[in-house]
């Protein structure tokens, strides 16, 4: 499972302050730290409080790229901001995200095709997040069909089945696992899958424990990536272990260290 480091997000006070004051230190520190801890991508989100999202995104991408060679995952509901980021990304980025809504898919897949970007597709539409696996898979299929229509390789599409916090939407858990399994049957090659991991434990008192258990269970269902806290050492160790148990990596005594260093 690829970890998309979640920490460069304007929701966090230090990043919001960095954006406000145009002081790159916090951004670059987190970029380096997440890379060192095993992140494969860095999520870049300007946060809710910024007035000019386009220029904030451009600045975040610029300063993050000074500190890391990792590919970036541009995270915004403002597609102009995403496009501004894509324009200056030094290597193919990931777009986070697009729901299965026609006009939004048109815009995002056109962009993805132009900038050779990967796309996170959300299994939701105008009606919100479905309750069951079946409806989620139907929306995933719409995303796959659109992705294909724009000539984007299906394995550049990451589908997020959308898991809700486990204290709010407990019934969604099994539906999400089932969705992950079924997505892998949609096409050949199948699309990839991603979840926003910290979402699962939102508002609970055992956040790290819940996150890493969900991650391992979801990996067994075919999860490819998660937007997560790359600095959670126990999480990274659990992911490395699951990869060995699923026969994705060849075991050796130092397998956790090897997993952490694989992007360096």
């Amino acid at each position, binding site marked *: 499972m690829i970890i998309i480091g979640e920490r460069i997000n304007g929701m966090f006070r230090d990043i919001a302050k960095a954006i406000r004051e145009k002081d790159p230190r916090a951004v670059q520190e987190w970029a380096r730290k997440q890379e060192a801890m095993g992140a494969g991508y860095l999520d870049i989100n300007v946060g809710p409080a910024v007035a000019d999202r386009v220029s904030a995104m451009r600045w975040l991408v610029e300063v993050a790229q000074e500190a890391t060679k990792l590919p970036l995952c541009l995270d915004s509901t403002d597609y102009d901001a995403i496009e501004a980021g894509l324009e200056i990304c030094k290597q193919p980025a990931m777009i986070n995200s697009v729901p299965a809504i026609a006009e939004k898919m048109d815009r995002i897949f056109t962009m993805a095709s132009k900038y050779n970007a990967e796309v996170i597709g959300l299994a939701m539409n105008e009606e919100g997040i479905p309750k069951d696996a079946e409806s989620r898979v139907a929306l995933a299929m719409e995303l796959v069909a659109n992705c294909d229509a724009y000539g984007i390789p299906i394995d550049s599409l990451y589908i997020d089945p959308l898991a809700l916090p486990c204290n709010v939407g407990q019934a969604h858990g099994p539906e999400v696992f089932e969705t992950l399994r079924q997505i892998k049957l949609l096409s050949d090659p199948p699309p990839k899958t991603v979840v926003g991991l910290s979402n699962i434990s939102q508002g609970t008192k055992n956040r790290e424990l819940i996150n890493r258990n969900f991650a391992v269970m979801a990996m067994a269902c075919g999860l490819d990536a998660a937007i997560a806290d790359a600095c959670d050492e126990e999480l990274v160790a659990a992911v490395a272990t699951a990869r060995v148990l699923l026969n994705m990596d060849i075991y*050796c*005594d*130092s397998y956790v260290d*090897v997993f952490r260093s694989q992007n360096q």
Partner: protein
Amino acid sequence: MAVEIFKEKYRSQVREVVLGATKDEGGTRAQTVKVGGETALPFLHFEGKVPNRPVVAMEIWDIVPEEWPASLKSYFEDVYSDPGAWARKCVEQYGADLIAIRFKSADPDIKDASAEECIATLKKVLEAVGVPLIVYGCGKAEKDNTIIGPIAEAAAGENLLLGVAEQDNYKAVASAAMAHKHSIIAQSPIDINIAKQLNILIAEMSTPLLDRIVIDPTVAALGYGLEYSYSIMERARFGALQGDRMLAMPTIANVGHEVWSKKEANISEEEQPGWGDQAERSLTWEVTTAAALLQAGMDILVMRHPGAVKLIKKQIDELMQDNS
């Protein structure tokens, strides 16, 4: 209807390792030998690159190999007293790409030769041939650890391929390789997990050594578990091509050593009439073992019989022909 051949795409490749060093590079070799660099499974030229052909090293000893059968020994009868002449014969007459010298004399139960004696022999061989050298101790770790450092120092800059580092005993060889710019054989007992771990341990001593490691996965002769070696190599190579950097090293096999110690290579036809001519049988045994290992992706074959070397080199020529 035309059939479209399905092509597998891999995202990584085997590291390329250079053996030997020319004068410009700080050594005295006439030429270097490059191994590894594959971006596809063995000889699937239509799926990727096999930039360097597998090579054959011929094994020489620094004592008379009394235990070799007459059918093998007879090829070298005139040169046993002189390892330099032995090496030259292997290169000039039998087409060896490299020479692997085994310092048997250092064995405390044979001659207990000193590092200085081994160095004198090594220098003779370095003078006699221009190909890169592979160096093995006597096989007894305690003694080998005392001679490998001085040998590496005496040949500093030659980029020898130094044998062998093992999980419980890698520091002496790794330090020698690190300090005097040589490459290193990392040997594991038909165990992929140890092969990987050993590379990590060596890399912890020196990251640049990662590009100078050749994996010896330990092979067995035909009939003695060759299939285990084969499947280990297959798994390691898949891992390498899929991005496992700690298994992405070229490989070496002691084919001659394995084959010629087995009864099938040694017992006469008189003793086992059903087994056929010993000379022909033993040669075939070595070639067949080597041929199977080529298919598993072996990059360096250390062999003994000139006839077997000739046949396997012919096969390598054929396998290296473009099939894309």
